[in-house]
């Protein structure tokens, strides 16, 4: 295993474990991230503000008035060495409802046509796999998940949409995601997930965390509306779709 140290200005640096999407790289990233968080919580990393784990790298943000690049690097070196032996830890498992019907699935027919299979086969493929949450980013609570079954690995749409509705379940470049917010977007929209992925009032505002596993369960448009109504009136707790603990913190320890 190897890594590179990259400068990200005077107040951050990035430890890069590779350049591709690969669960083995993610295991190293998450092992280093967990080790840094433990050191930070123990008060051993003065000036380190926070970390940002991604598919293949960990960016460490620090206050240049308190510490500097060399001091941060010196403190990280043994943690990086240990992270290289990091094994894949099992995150939480989720089963999230998705409506793959009608206006919730504007690109389903096009995707089926592009691959040359039926729409129901696309749904079966997409909901038949278990996905790893590689990272949360781009937008608050936005999960990058993979890997898609081979037939579903399409490039982005030629024409990005100016407006992708919140809750859209999308695929592109071998990955699948759920848009927590209305946003411009270039992915193919296969369905709609009624469960809010981000809520600032929750103790953990992002429903999903890097390392979690997600399966999608097809629901009808009617069921989807019922779930939305139940969530809106607080009759339904989003945690009901959590299949199993551990929590991310235990997972990290």
């Amino acid at each position, binding site marked *: 295993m190897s890594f590179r140290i990259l400068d990200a*200005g005077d107040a951050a640096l990035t430890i890069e474990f590779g350049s591709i999407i690969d669960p083995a790289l993610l295991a190293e990233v998450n092992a280093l991230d967990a080790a840094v968080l433990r050191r930070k919580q123990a008060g051993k990393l003065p000036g380190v503000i*926070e970390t940002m784990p991604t598919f293949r*790298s960990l960016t460490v943000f620090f206050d*240049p008035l308190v510490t*500097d690049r060399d001091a941060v690097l010196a403190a990280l070196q043994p943690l990086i060495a240990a992270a290289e032996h990091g094994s894949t830890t099992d995150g939480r498992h989720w089963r999230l409802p998705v409506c793959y019907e009608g206006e919730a699935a504007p690109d389903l027919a096009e995707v089926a046509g592009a691959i040359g299979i039926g729409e129901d086969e696309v749904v079966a493929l997409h909901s038949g796999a278990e996905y790893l949450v590689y990272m949360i980013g781009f937008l608050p609570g936005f999960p990058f998940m993979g890997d898609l079954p081979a037939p579903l690995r399409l490039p982005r749409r030629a024409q990005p949409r100016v407006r992708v509705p919140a809750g859209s379940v999308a695929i592109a470049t071998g990955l699948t995601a759920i848009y927590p917010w209305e946003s411009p977007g270039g992915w193919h929209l296969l369905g709609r997930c009624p469960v809010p992925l981000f809520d600032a009032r929750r103790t953990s505002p992002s429903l999903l965390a890097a390392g979690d596993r997600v399966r999608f369960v097809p629901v009808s448009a009617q069921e989807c509306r019922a779930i939305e109504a139940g969530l809106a009136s607080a009759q339904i707790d989003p945690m009901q779709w959590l299949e199993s603990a551990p929590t991310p913190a235990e997972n990290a320890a």
Partner: protein
Amino acid sequence: MSTRTEVEILSPGAFASIQDGGRRGHRRIGVPWAGVLDRRLMRIANALAGRAEDAAVIECFDGGLHVAASGGAVKLAVAGDTVVEVEGTEGRRQLAPWRSVTLADGEQLRIRKMEGGRIAMVAIVGLEPAAVMGSASTYARAGIGGVDGRALGAGTRLALSADADPWDSDRVLAQPPAADTGPIRLVPGPQADHFSPTALDALVGGEYRVTPEADRMGIRLEGAQLEHAGAAEIVSDATVPGSIQVPGAGQPIVLLADAQTAGGYPKIATVIGADLGRLAALRPGQSLRFAAVSAAEGACIARAAETETRALIASIRALPPDGIDLMALYTGNLVDGVVHALGTEYRPLY
């Protein structure tokens, strides 16, 4: 009659929002820091108003912010190269910038225009908006912070805490910071190796212009073309405030406080923290140049800038008193006298 004291936004001007030092610790779930674009301006505004240095302020762009005190006297302070005007019971008067002022109930303050830059900060005694995820900063994308998670609109009323005390003497920064027109400094990387060998020289040697696409998320520049060595895409990784992303067209975008936390465009360099406020204050059409420094040099510059900011804050002085009992003045129903209370040296001349 007891009413609560409020600041009413009569107009937000071009764009105004509640910001503070920013929201830390949530980039891992896609939440950027937000917070003021120029932390030094915020600290000066808060020091002028006698507030904690990271307390929430109104950050406004391009002038036009117009506010009124309602239900009682309000002390506020403006930092930035502004032309400020107070409309009181006896007409309008211009106010020196870089000072605090106490508005009587019903009086209004307006930032008529910016003399330089495009950002001003208004600190208000008693402005204590609720923190969301550790900060009051408005982050409109997720609808969190500030007032209902949105930028300020006309008619918004900001309730001030009941224990806010506007009677402390007003303060002034007699010698405001001089405009720094030097190059914007950057540290090459993290993906400088995704560009042709000449791209970094082109970035540092060329002149760039700020396009109209400039906001709290980032600033799109136009100038010398930056050629990628291969694909103009990477597997998404973390961005930082100051990241210079270069999409396929070869024109750089500098990310700011509200930018997305991860991105798939290669980042040729990163603007250092000490120069980000200066960059964010450039108006569309203005030009700029970059200079490369090492990460270590960037940290030295950060420490020097901090020393300078502390010296500026330490130089803040109380306005010359003129023997008037301010409490009696504002609680009594005086028609005149308000101007006198502001300190003769800084009284407007028209």
